[in-house]
């Protein structure tokens, strides 16, 4: 009898060790969006957490928003624990927003805790806020879903329309450390009290050095051959029309054929990147019509080709201005021209790269109008 009791006792002791790790859902504050900002005055970091309030508590506010200062994000979070009723948990984080100021210094230090902790939500969206991240997290919009949901859904919808690259905390990590490629992160601002997508923030290594607008991001993604479900572009093709609407055409890209090559001109030592892009597009808005006429159709497509070649070229120049090698040209040089790669300092050479963009637009569809 005693032996059985002992065995039972040992069993219970061993099994009960598991209770130590239990985290009851009801005792946890589930943080849905978090913001990290630099606080200039004291060289501190300010974190802001927003978590929805359960309906059972019948409060008027829908989300609980708290913020605190600290030397590191985790330090600030520990300071927060003194303020909230239940333990904070970032396991279901949807949006992590980082202030531009902090990102311009170095993006990695505030993210370190996220990569280090096995429980963190690596699939959460990472967003750079143009101003303070806190201002966006703090929003309590009455006619919209909760801010965290709003931002996450907004980004997801934009990703599907090739307006933003598909990113999350995990996916931006490799380019942050890759010498031959740089990262881009969705870039957001507040416009008239509402969160507004501005495009992407461009990074040079781990520092934010510039940004692209939404339209430029779409073009960049097309250059990267990363067309999602659709991508729509609006372009001014005429200038003399009385009705302003008739000057524009809106196209939807259905397919992209990209041909990117990296060569080194032996004579000059110049890196040349011929970038040939074939866009197969669907004209979805063109009030002038007459597209059943083949001549006009060809005219329009050559017009578009010319315009886009110019605009795409400008995007590459912008990339070079912020010294952000999003296209991963460095990687190709590392792979195909390794001796050359060893000779040069890529970050210095990058701005000299000669991008030779050539866009061909092929109108394959123009709606059901005749």
């Amino acid at each position, binding site marked *: *009898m005693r*032996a*059985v009791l002992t*065995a039972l006792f040992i069993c219970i002791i061993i*099994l*009960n060790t*598991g*209770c130590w*790790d*239990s*985290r*009851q*859902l*009801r005792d*946890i504050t*589930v943080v849905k969006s978090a913001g990290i900002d630099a606080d200039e005055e004291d060289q501190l970091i300010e974190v802001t957490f927003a978590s*929805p309030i*359960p*309906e*059972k*508590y019948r409060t008027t506010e829908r989300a609980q928003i708290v913020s605190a200062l600290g030397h590191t994000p985790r330090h600030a979070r520990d300071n927060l624990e003194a303020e909230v009723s239940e333990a904070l*948990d970032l*396991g*279901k984080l*949807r949006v992590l927003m980082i202030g531009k100021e902090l990102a311009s210094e170095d993006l990695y230090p505030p993210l370190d805790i996220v990569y280090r902790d096995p*429980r963190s*939500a690596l699939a959460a969206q990472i967003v750079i806020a143009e101003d303070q991240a806190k201002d966006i997290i703090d929003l309590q919009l009455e006619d919209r879903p909760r801010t965290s949901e709003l931002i*996450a859904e907004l980004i997801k919808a934009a990703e599907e329309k090739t307006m933003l690259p598909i990113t999350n905390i995990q996916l931006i990590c490799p380019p942050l450390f890759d010498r031959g490629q740089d990262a881009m992160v969705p870039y957001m601002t507040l416009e008239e009290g509402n969160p507004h997508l501005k495009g992407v923030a461009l990074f040079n290594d781990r520092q934010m050095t510039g940004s692209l607008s939404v339209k430029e991001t779409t073009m960049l993604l097309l250059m990267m051959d990363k067309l999602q479900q659709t991508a729509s572009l609006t372009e001014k093709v005429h200038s003399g029309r009385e009705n302003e609407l008739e000057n524009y055409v809106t196209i939807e890209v259905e397919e992209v054929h990209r041909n990117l090559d990296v060569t080194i001109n032996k004579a000059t030592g110049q890196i040349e990147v011929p970038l040939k892009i074939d866009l197969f597009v669907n004209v979805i808005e063109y009030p002038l019509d007459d597209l059943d006429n083949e001549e006009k159709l060809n005219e329009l497509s050559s017009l578009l080709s010319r315009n886009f070649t110019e605009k795409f070229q400008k995007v590459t120049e912008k990339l070079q201005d912020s010294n952000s090698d999003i296209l991963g040209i460095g990687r190709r040089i590392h792979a195909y021209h390794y001796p050359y790669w060893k000779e040069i300092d890529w970050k210095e050479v990058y701005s000299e790269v000669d991008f030779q963009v050539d866009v061909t637009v092929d109108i394959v569809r123009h709606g059901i109008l005749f």
Partner: protein
Amino acid sequence: MKLLKWFKRDKSKTDNDRTNPVIADYELPPYPAKDDMAENKVYLKETFNYTEDLIDKPFTIDTHACSVMFLESLTDEEKMEKNLYSKLNRVHSIGALEETLTNMDASKLLHVSEAVPHILAGKCLLFIDGLDYCYILNTNKIILRDIGQPENEQIIRGAHQGFVESLMVNIYLLRQMVQHPQLTIRFKKVGKKKNTKVCIVHVEGTADKKVLNEIDRRLSKIDSDKLISSGVIEEYLEDFPYSPFPQFMSTERPDRCALNLLDGKIVLFVEGEGTALLLPMSFLSFYQSNDDYNSRWYAGTFFRLLRMFSFVTSVTLPGIYIAIISFHFEIIPYGMTFVIKDAVEEIPYPPIVEAFFMELTLELIREAGVRLPSPIGQTIGIVGGLVIGDAVVNAGFVSSVMIIVVALTAISSFAVPANEMSMSVRLLRFPIMIMASLLGFLGIVFCLNIYLIHLCKLTSLGQPYFYPFAPFHFKGILKDVLRFPHTKTTWLNLDNNHNNNNES
């Protein structure tokens, strides 16, 4: 070692403890029939302790006093009339009477004591004054239930017959379905006093000889002196009496037995029971229903897969829920996190208490409703299911998600076609719930591993229980898990005997 000793000691103790009061078997000293009829009568009455349903009907034939004695409750009036009274009218001498009796297959007994078991079986005893022997006449009453649809094993299409409490009728039903000379029936008396008749049915040639011999050996080892039922026999025949899984199937359906007989299985009947034992059985056969074979094969396959899925959900669902809300809430999809968080926010107990409370309540409702007449049973279901479920959530004792989980679990445990498997499955989820509350998913995996190891080790009369998974056999899995069209199964039957060829 100590632990082992403790077990041993315990076992011997329980053996000694078995001193339940049992009616002593009657053993009468031989009592030869006397010339004097009155003396015989007194002996018989005394033996039956002057019971009042022992009828004594005297009559005279040719001045000879005669008497018929029988137990009123066990004899058939019509048979008495047909076999005895109508003939007595035509007989006018003792010689003629004796001749008639012999023609009627009446047996002559020299000892009155020998007649006692016959009277107990419903026969009647005829004394003739002046003769030192007596006659036994076959007048026993047979009351049989109709061969109707078994209540707890209903099917939609196919034969709607069920076994009844008579061995002969049951064998009749089987022989109707399997009209083959190789269908062999063996009777055996089991128990300490050898008074329970058991019938073993098999098809010679397909059934495994070794298994048959093993059944025979184990049946002769039964030394219980209690009334032996199929449940007792089942436990004596089992390889692993401590296993939670049923190793034999009990069924009331002759068509199921017939199918299994042709498949090489053995059917065992116990006298006086309307349930047949099918043995040996594999795990998957508990999840197959005759309906599978009678419906279109798409439907058959779909419902079979659904039932297997129901095994997984009924065993693990409450455990998974507990593990999720106390350890791994990250895996809840974004949209649901707050629905669940809202639901559990103000529950005063840990999830395991909540789950046990609800599971036990449900089991209670089921147990209370199962033996009640159906109108009351339905009321219990409504009171239990709707009223308690709703009130408990409103009062905030149990979260609404828990009610959903418990209800789903209960429904999936009822989806098993075999009742005994449904019982085991219901019990199997409790260890999983406890382990889930202690170690989360890790605990569930531990527990499922133990179940899996046990299933792989388990044998039913030497046949692997978890076939075709444990001795892995791909075609067997296809055959048992899916249901292919009957005309296209030849390629699956190539090694049909694989199951039987395994060493037993």
